[in-house]
């Protein structure tokens, strides 16, 4: 890509521990343009840490080393904490997994969304309120006026996640990092929430980094998929090509899923090879 929005080169994250150093992310490099990129992998593969590293939100005891971290011409690697605060939420925002834990339980929903907007835009309260109500409507909340005055515990999980999407979209960021945004939701609600997110992201031309463990969901929803294993990107391929994946790990993951259209007696369990950690990643079906 000629001019990527986000460039990450040689990202390493380590956690010093009592039993030696845990190398969570090992030399990950990728770029994101104005597209929807899915990052898939199992727990412990480093996908969430990679997402957090972009906003420098890793826990304080984690050590992060990166060759290059650039966002829209802005060097995030050198950015101070003060500069990062102006980027977080405003230009890059993050949607988290569970609205139950990510919304402030003591603030009314409307006030939380208005706060997200007014932190980055100097406007009058009345205008922020109008925008908040319009945003609630955009995420298909039927009675925005009523929901505006509710507390987070008074809404369902699916509505909570839509409120979080509204909150993350209202400052009009250029990149959204969504960390398992639908895994706490039911299948029927999941579709609706994804539909809303897809609609808003494509309409505004926002880039999306979608972190998930669900391969099929990512294949349906994203344009491009990065597969992570043991802190490495083992494969990078267009989402519609996922079912022709080349890497044995990606293939293994796909085959281990029970499928409605292909009943089997016993499922295949993916094998793992420690050598995959050191091999270069397969890019669009080509081994470099």
């Amino acid at each position, binding site marked *: 890509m000629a001019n990527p929005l986000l460039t990450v080169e040689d990202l390493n994250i380590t956690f010093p521990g009592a039993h030696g150093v845990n190398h969570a992310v090992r030399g990950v490099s990728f770029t994101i343009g104005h597209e929807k990129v899915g990052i898939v992998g199992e727990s412990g593969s480093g996908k969430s840490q990679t997402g957090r590293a972009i906003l420098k939100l890793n826990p304080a005891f984690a050590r992060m080393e990166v060759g290059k971290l650039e966002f829209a011409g802005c060097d995030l690697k050198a950015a101070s904490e003060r500069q990062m605060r102006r980027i977080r939420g405003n230009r890059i925002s993050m949607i988290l997994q569970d609205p139950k834990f990510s919304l402030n339980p003591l603030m009314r929903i409307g006030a939380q969304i208005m706060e997200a907007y007014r932190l980055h835009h100097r406007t009058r309260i009345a205008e922020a309120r109008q925008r908040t109500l319009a945003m609630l409507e955009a995420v298909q909340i039927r009675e925005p006026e009523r929901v505006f005055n509710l507390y987070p515990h008074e809404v369902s999980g699916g509505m909570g996640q839509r409120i979080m999407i509204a909150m993350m979209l209202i400052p009009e960021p250029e990149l959204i990092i969504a960390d398992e945004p639908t895994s706490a939701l039911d*299948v*029927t609600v999941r*579709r609706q929430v994804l539909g809303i997110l897809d609609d808003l992201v494509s309409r505004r031309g926002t880039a999306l980094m979608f972190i998930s*463990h669900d391969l099929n*969901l990512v294949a349906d929803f994203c344009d491009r998929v990065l597969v992570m294993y043991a802190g490495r990107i083992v494969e990078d391929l267009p989402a519609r090509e996922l079912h022709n994946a080349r890497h044995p790990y990606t293939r293994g993951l796909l085959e281990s*899923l029970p499928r*409605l259209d292909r009943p089997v007696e016993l499922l295949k369990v*993916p094998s793992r090879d420690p050598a995959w950690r050191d091999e270069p990643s397969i890019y669009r079906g080509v081994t470099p």
Partner: protein
Amino acid sequence: MTAAIPEVLPAGRPQSTPQRHLETIDLDITFGTGLATHHAVKEVSFMIKRGGAYGLIGESGCGKSTILRAVAGLNADYRGAILIGDKEVQNKRGKEFFRRVQMVFQDPYASLHPRKIVKSVLMEPMKIHGFDNPEARMARVLDEVGLGQEFRYRYPHELSGGQRQRIAIARALVIEPEILLLDEPTSALDVSVQAEILNLLKTLRRERHLTYLMVSHDLAVVAHLCERIGMMQSGRIIEEMTDDDVRASRASQPYTQEFLAASIG
């Protein structure tokens, strides 16, 4: 007149078949009183044959776990009848019931005692039910769930999620139950580990002729393990299907059709 407990069967019900293993008749569960009453399960009846596997699916809050907890004896406050074999069980269960019916919970991180090693986890149920040869039985059950003997002396925090769920299954199996109640046994696990646990459950069922009652929101998982599936919506089973019906998307209720479509994606 004798003091024996009569085997009450509601009138008008078909007579029992010899294969019937687990049945609920008009199971009805409410929580709370007055204005706060929540009618969680409404007149649910289903029957599982010996060696069968029945899956309950539905969105969260539809009452599927509530049914499982009532069957398991964790909630004695229900109306209607639960039958094991041909006998109705009392709301307050006896020891014999727990030897025949065991449960595996959703989250293996929460269902094992953090201060107990695997050995004491597996020994306790055998001690309660007075089994002989506990050491040999423990060795066998560890073997069956695919863990080595060295796992005896581990604490839960020394095990991965998949290994923990294997220990939870071993704990349920060690007293040789006939019926296993499975509450989302793989939803907290990664896909590769999910495949291992589903394979284990399938093999154990065949080898031990177990009867399964499973609750899940993942249609593909339920169809993989169960041959009969009950679709639930707001406390009722609105439709019963076979796994072939699910695979072919044959459903008569609009809600079921919508659920199937959303799951297939």
